[in-house]
């Protein structure tokens, strides 16, 4: 497991919230700026709208004035005027004036009023109020509009004056005077909502008309802010306080035909309120937007967190090798990781299965090796070139008789068990191994801790690296004790078989010779006997023939013995108690043995065997004779023992004579082999014994030590029937 970072961590939601905040902050600043700009624009727009209103009103005023000028110009061309028929013209003009709710005046260029339709024709002439203006019109011959003037009746009026041009001169000026209230009509023409203040200021800065509280302010001087606009740039946007003292955004526009100024003001509060409302709406929307943004960030954060938690869970499961649950997510990248984890899970599963299989194979191979080593009784030792470390297999422990749980013994402990004679061979020749030379196979004798003798065989196989230098070596270790024993036994058996075959062929040969000798002896003995009887007793011829007869008889005896060896002489086997035979034989023997030899006997009751009585006598006789001859003139003992040994009856004859060397031992059963001086023995005694024993399916073995004596063991098998019988008797 990786150690968790010690750095502080913050939740994804917090990160997302921060991102949302940081993203929104410039947006907020920009939108704030934009809102302000917008408000400004809105304000400008409003002000321009105000200007537009002012212009529209100015145009409306000019239209009215122009209408009056047109009306007056139409009157100018009236024939009554040309004809100087002022009275008729008066009536005409009065009618027109009535239609326009005005008074029409005919004025002389000096300003003298010739008539006024508002007055009766013929009323006293008098200077008109605007005499100066009339004179200017008469001289310039251009129409003019007056400023506001007040007549004694208290009404405020405005006059429009046009020259009456006749023959290139202006002998009259025609004027139309109307109440300023007529001009108030333009305020109604303007379609404008909300509170606004429309003011018409004449060139003198006097208020000519006003849409609000006209009765109070018409005729009053306009505020300074308006009056200052009468000169210079008369079309302008500005701020000004109204006469009521209300601060306004204002605009002014001049009337072309009159030199008046039309001003429109909207209370600042009105416009600002609108903008403020607008701003308020925007500013109120912002926190909502922020809140919504954060909410969305949280929702998305939650979704991501859920996906990531599921991912973390599946990653942990992946690590633990547990089945992983599918991660449900709408996030492509997480789905990608989850998919990758699925693939990784499959790969890991596959790898785990491969590992399991490999482990199982490895386990099976280890078992295989262990069993194979056990069955083959072959252990192994692995040598590692880099460390000189040796690793014993289980079978090696068994062969060298060490407990595997105690670990491998050190060299000294191991060497203590090796036979002294082989201590130079047993240690592992590390120098050879390091040189990359395969050590020659060795055999050494070994003592197990239990005291058993073992013969250990060891052979090396080098495992070199690619460059030829040794990397490892495997020594196989084999307990060849049994093999060596078996080999020795086989060699012995082979030699015994060879010996037996030799005796067999000798026997056959001897049998053949004996047969012919018997034939030969027929005339020698038979004819000699016949002839001998034909001579008188004590005659030399009879004595001579007796010598031939004696020779013949000895030859006959020899042939008999040879035949016994060759088993050619028929034997008569009967159920025989060997003990009884033995006792009889020993009785005879005792009499014939010299007093220097002690004959000891131990005859145990034994089951009957199938044997020829005479031949048994002969065996005992021959063996005893042989023993006595081995003792010779010395003091000595002959032991004769009869016992039951397993399924056999064993006859043992031991002497304390001179003994025999190996060479002699190997040949003693050969016929005519003798160690005795010529004339002392026939050399047939032991070969006859061998022949008889073989004929009885018995075995004979001899051990001897020069100077200590010899021991003959003869075993005859107990017949099945006798065995059963004796067992019954015993029970």
């Amino acid at each position, binding site marked *: 497991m990786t150690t968790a970072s010690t750095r502080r961590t913050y939740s994804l939601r917090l990160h997302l919230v921060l991102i949302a905040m940081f993203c929104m902050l410039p947006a907020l600043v920009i939108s704030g700026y934009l809102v302000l700009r917008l408000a400004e624009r809105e304000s400008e727009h409003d002000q321009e709208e105000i200007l537009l209103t002012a212009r529209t009103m100015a145009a409306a005023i000019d239209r009215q004035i122009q209408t009056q000028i047109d009306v007056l110009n139409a009157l100018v061309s009236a024939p009554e005027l040309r004809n100087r028929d002022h009275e008729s013209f008066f009536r005409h003009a009065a009618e027109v004036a009535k239609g326009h709710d005005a008074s029409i005046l005919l004025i002389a260029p000096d300003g003298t009023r010739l008539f006024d339709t508002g007055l009766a024709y013929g009323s006293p002439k008098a200077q008109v109020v605007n005499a100066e203006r009339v004179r200017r019109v008469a001289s310039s011959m251009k129409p003019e509009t007056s400023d506001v003037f007040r007549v004694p009746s208290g009404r405020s009026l405005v006059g429009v004056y046009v020259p009456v041009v006749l023959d290139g001169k202006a002998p009259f000026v025609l004027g139309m005077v109307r109440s300023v209230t007529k001009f108030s009509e333009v305020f109604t023409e303007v379609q404008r909502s909300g509170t606004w203040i429309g003011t018409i200021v004449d060139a003198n800065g006097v208020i000519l008309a006003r849409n609000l509280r006209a009765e109070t302010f018409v005729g009053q001087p306009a505020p300074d802010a308006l009056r200052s606009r009468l000169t210079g740039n008369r079309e302008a946007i500005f701020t000004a306080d109204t006469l009521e003292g209300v601060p306004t955004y204002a605009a002014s526009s001049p009337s072309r035909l009159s030199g008046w100024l039309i001003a429109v003001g909207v209370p600042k509060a009105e416009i600002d309120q609108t903008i403020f409302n607008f701003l308020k709406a925007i500013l109120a929307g912002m926190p909502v937007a922020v809140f919504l943004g954060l909410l969305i960030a949280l929702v998305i954060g939650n979704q991501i967190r859920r996906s990531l938690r599921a991912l973390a869970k599946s990653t942990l499961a992946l690590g633990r090798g547990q089945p992983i649950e599918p991660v449900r997510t709408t996030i492509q990248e997480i789905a990608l990781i989850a998919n990758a984890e699925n693939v990784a899970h499959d790969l890991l599963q596959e790898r785990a299965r491969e590992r399991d299989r490999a482990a199982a194979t490895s386990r099976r191979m280890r078992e295989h090796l262990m069993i194979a080593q056990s069955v083959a009784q072959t252990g192994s030792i692995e040598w590692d070139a880099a460390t000189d470390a040796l690793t014993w297999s289980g079978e090696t422990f068994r062969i060298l008789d060490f407990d595997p749980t105690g670990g491998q013994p050190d060299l000294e402990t191991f060497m203590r068990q090796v036979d002294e004679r082989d201590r130079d061979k047993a240690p592992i020749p590390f120098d050879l191994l390091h040189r990359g030379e395969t050590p020659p196979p060795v055999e050494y004798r070994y003592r197990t801790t239990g005291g058993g003798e073992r013969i250990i065989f060891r052979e090396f196989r080098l495992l070199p690296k690619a460059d030829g230098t040794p990397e490892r070596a495997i020594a196989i270790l084999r307990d060849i004790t049994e093999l060596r024993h078996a080999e020795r036994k086989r060699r012995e058996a082979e030699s015994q078989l060879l010996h037996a075959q030799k005796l067999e062929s000798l*026997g*056959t040969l001897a*049998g*053949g010779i*004996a*047969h*012919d*000798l*018997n*034939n*030969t*002896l*027929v*005339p*020698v*003995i*038979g*004819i000699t*006997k*016949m002839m001998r009887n034909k001579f008188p007793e004590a005659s030399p011829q009879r004595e001579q023939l007796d010598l031939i007869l004696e020779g*013949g008889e000895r030859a*006959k005896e020899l042939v008999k013995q040879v*035949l016994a060896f*060759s*088993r*050619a*002489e*028929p034997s008569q086997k009967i159920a025989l108690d060997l003990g009884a035979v033995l006792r009889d034989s020993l009785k005879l023997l005792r009499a014939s043995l010299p007093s220097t030899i002690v004959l000891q006997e131990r005859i145990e009751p034994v089951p009957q065997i199938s044997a020829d009585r005479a031949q048994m006598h002969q065996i005992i006789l021959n063996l005893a004779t042989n023993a006595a001859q081995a003792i010779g003139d010395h003091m000595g003992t002959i032991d004769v023992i009869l016992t039951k040994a397993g399924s056999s009856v064993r006859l043992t004859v031991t002497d304390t004579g001179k003994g025999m060397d190996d060479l002699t031992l190997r040949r003693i059963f050969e016929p005519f082999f003798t160690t005795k001086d010529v004339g002392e023995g026939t050399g047939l005694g032991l070969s006859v014994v061998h022949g008889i024993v073989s*004929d009885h399916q018995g075995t004979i073995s001899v051990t001897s030590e020069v100077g200590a004596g010899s021991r003959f063991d003869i075993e005859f098998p107990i017949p099945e029937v006798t065995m059963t019988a004796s067992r019954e008797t015993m029970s």
Partner: protein
Amino acid sequence: MTTKILVIDDDPLVRRSFEQFLTDVGYEVALAANGRAGLALFTKLHPDIVVTDIIMPEQEGIETIIQMRKLNPKAKIIAVSGSGRVSNQDFLSIAAKFGAAATLMKPIDQDQLVDAVRKLLDG
């Protein structure tokens, strides 16, 4: 009338020794060197006693005894053997089973042979 004895033996030493033993006591002796010749003489001479060796070339003794017993079931036969070249075979006892009235082991002297003949003739 003299007693006629047929001696069958492949060894002339034995044959002629037996002839000496038997003629010495007055018997008439005929000799054959093998079983076939012996059987021919047996048919021709009708001997009172037959003395035959067991192991012989041409026709051995046991076979000869069987043939003779066929020709004359009352034939009196003495089987003689110097023991066989083949080990462990009790030929004499076999011969006895097939009709040899007496069996003798070589080497035998005059007394043994004549005793056997007389016992047979008396019996």
